[in-house]
């Protein structure tokens, strides 16, 4: 189990240039281990910058990143091992594919770890299953895959490193509803089977409400709220202030409740809502 803790973290893009931007502003945060954590925020709120801190792609200008209590920048030479322990799937990761075959591409990470052929084979097959990619595609060129398949191949490329923490930056951006659903349900399955910590970045409240246990809300480089989803979604005013909104079904439920209908809060999916409404309807018959 790996626990990530951020202490007074600040980061500036374009430091010491006329374009300097404070992308992260004294962030204090603990990412609970073994859970799915959702990082939500408006575009430009600093989500991508924050996740690039977690695996040492960017170095904080102030503050520390602790992985199991150890400052990851203390021994700079070991930064690669941090990247293997905290796997980061970047936004639009399909653009990172480069090998002749999907197999070789997924094997790139494990190979950089210095693993043997056999171990690599096992990991590639396992990660392909987790990412929901059909094994026939392994011998194809990654450039011949569809958009959704490329995305899953790229995710498999990170899972193959068996990171303790899997971080995904907008893993479903630009996909159709079925593609989104496929990515998320595979991630949930991966989480259940491996028990690893998963961090998902998104600005879709619907997706976050559905799949994440714990939510972190960001705005303008700061953490606005952190807590489980009931806690976060019960503060809809605060969410609206930072340009976010509670899921539509949850909103509908709140309106019904105001009308005196006995639905409780904490409903985040259409299925849950349907079930609840039907049961009330049946009772009223």
């Amino acid at each position: 189990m790996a626990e990530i803790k951020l202490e007074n973290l600040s980061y500036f893009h374009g430091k010491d240039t006329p374009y300097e931007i404070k992308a992260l502003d004294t962030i204090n945060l603990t990412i609970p281990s073994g859970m799915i954590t959702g990082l939500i925020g408006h575009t430009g709120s600093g989500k991508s910058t924050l996740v690039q801190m977690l695996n040492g792609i960017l170095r904080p200008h102030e503050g520390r990143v602790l992985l199991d209590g150890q400052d990851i920048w203390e021994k700079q030479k070991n930064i690669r091992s941090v990247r293997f322990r905290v796997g980061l799937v970047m936004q639009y990761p399909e653009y990172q594919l480069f090998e002749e075959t999907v197999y070789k591409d997924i094997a790139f990470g494990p190979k950089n770890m210095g693993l043997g052929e056999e171990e690599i084979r096992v990991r590639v097959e396992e990660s392909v299953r987790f990412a929901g990619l059909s094994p026939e595609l392994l011998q194809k060129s990654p450039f011949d895959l569809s958009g959704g398949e490329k995305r899953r191949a790229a995710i498999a490329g990170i899972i193959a490193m068996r990171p303790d923490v899997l971080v995904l930056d907008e893993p479903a951006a630009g996909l159709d509803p079925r593609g989104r659903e496929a990515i998320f349900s595979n991630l949930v399955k991966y989480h259940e089977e491996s028990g690893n910590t998963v961090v998902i970045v998104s600005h879709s409240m619907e997706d976050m409400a559905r799949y994440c246990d714990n939510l972190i809300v960001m705005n303008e480089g700061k953490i606005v709220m952190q807590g489980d989803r009931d806690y976060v979604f019960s503060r809809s005013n605060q969410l609206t202030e930072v340009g976010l909104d509670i899921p539509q079904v949850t909103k509908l439920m709140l309106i019904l409740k105001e009308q005196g209908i006995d639905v409780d809060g904490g409903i985040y999916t259409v299925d849950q809502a349907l079930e609840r409404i039907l049961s009330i309807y049946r009772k009223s018959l």
Partner: protein
Amino acid sequence: MKSIAFGQFYPANSPLHKLDPRIKVILTVLYIVCSFLCKNLLSFALLALSAILLILCGRVPIRIVLRGLRPVLIILAFTALLNIFWTKGEQLLFAWKFIEIYAEGLYAAVFMMVRIATLIIGTGMLLTYTTTPIALTDALEDLLSPLKKLKVPVHEFAMMMTIALRFIPLLSEETEKIMTAQKARGADFSSGGLIQRAKALIPILIPLFVSAFNRAGDLATAMECRCYHGGEGRTRMHVRHVRLVDFIPLLLVLLLGASLIFLNVLGIGFSMK
């Protein structure tokens, strides 16, 4: 590799930034001529003063202007030394064995340094710091448009320049993203021998080329869809009109040139031959 900080353009709201880029190109040429008109102490002093005025007008921090001078520091030092030791004159200041230093040499050294420094500062302030590369290309297209009569494809060259300039920040941004993505998979770009380092570039170059070609293809299709067919009969979206105030700097530079010639004729202070 900061995409927005591409080139040396320094964003600010200054009279020089607002000046029509075509005028700025002409001003630059005139300014270069001016710097070669200088012959004596007073005219060089005036030239140096004009460079300082330019910096003030452009509102670019002095730190950044000086940083632009850094690459030519060696040339500056070298010309200074050459002039000090090799210029022969009448006023001997210092002699030791075969080394003779004349007042003329010292003056010449200072003059050359002032000339080179003002040339760099002048072109920098008029063009690189205050004009975006795209505006500069447009200005050159306009100024060179008479060459179209001679069947020189001025518009096409300008369009290629514009597209290339537009692609540079895109590509550098993309390179950065791809590098980050591969680093996240443990790629190592900074260790190993030459061959190993070259090999480490493959995971960057392949996706970069693929996306650059895709992008170029998309752009060509998009231009095709909007019936782009080259320069003939094409008008600009933002037509620049030279305002009357834009002529003031032209007048000022002409005035500068005239005063320089006048000061040369007066011949006060030390004169270069």
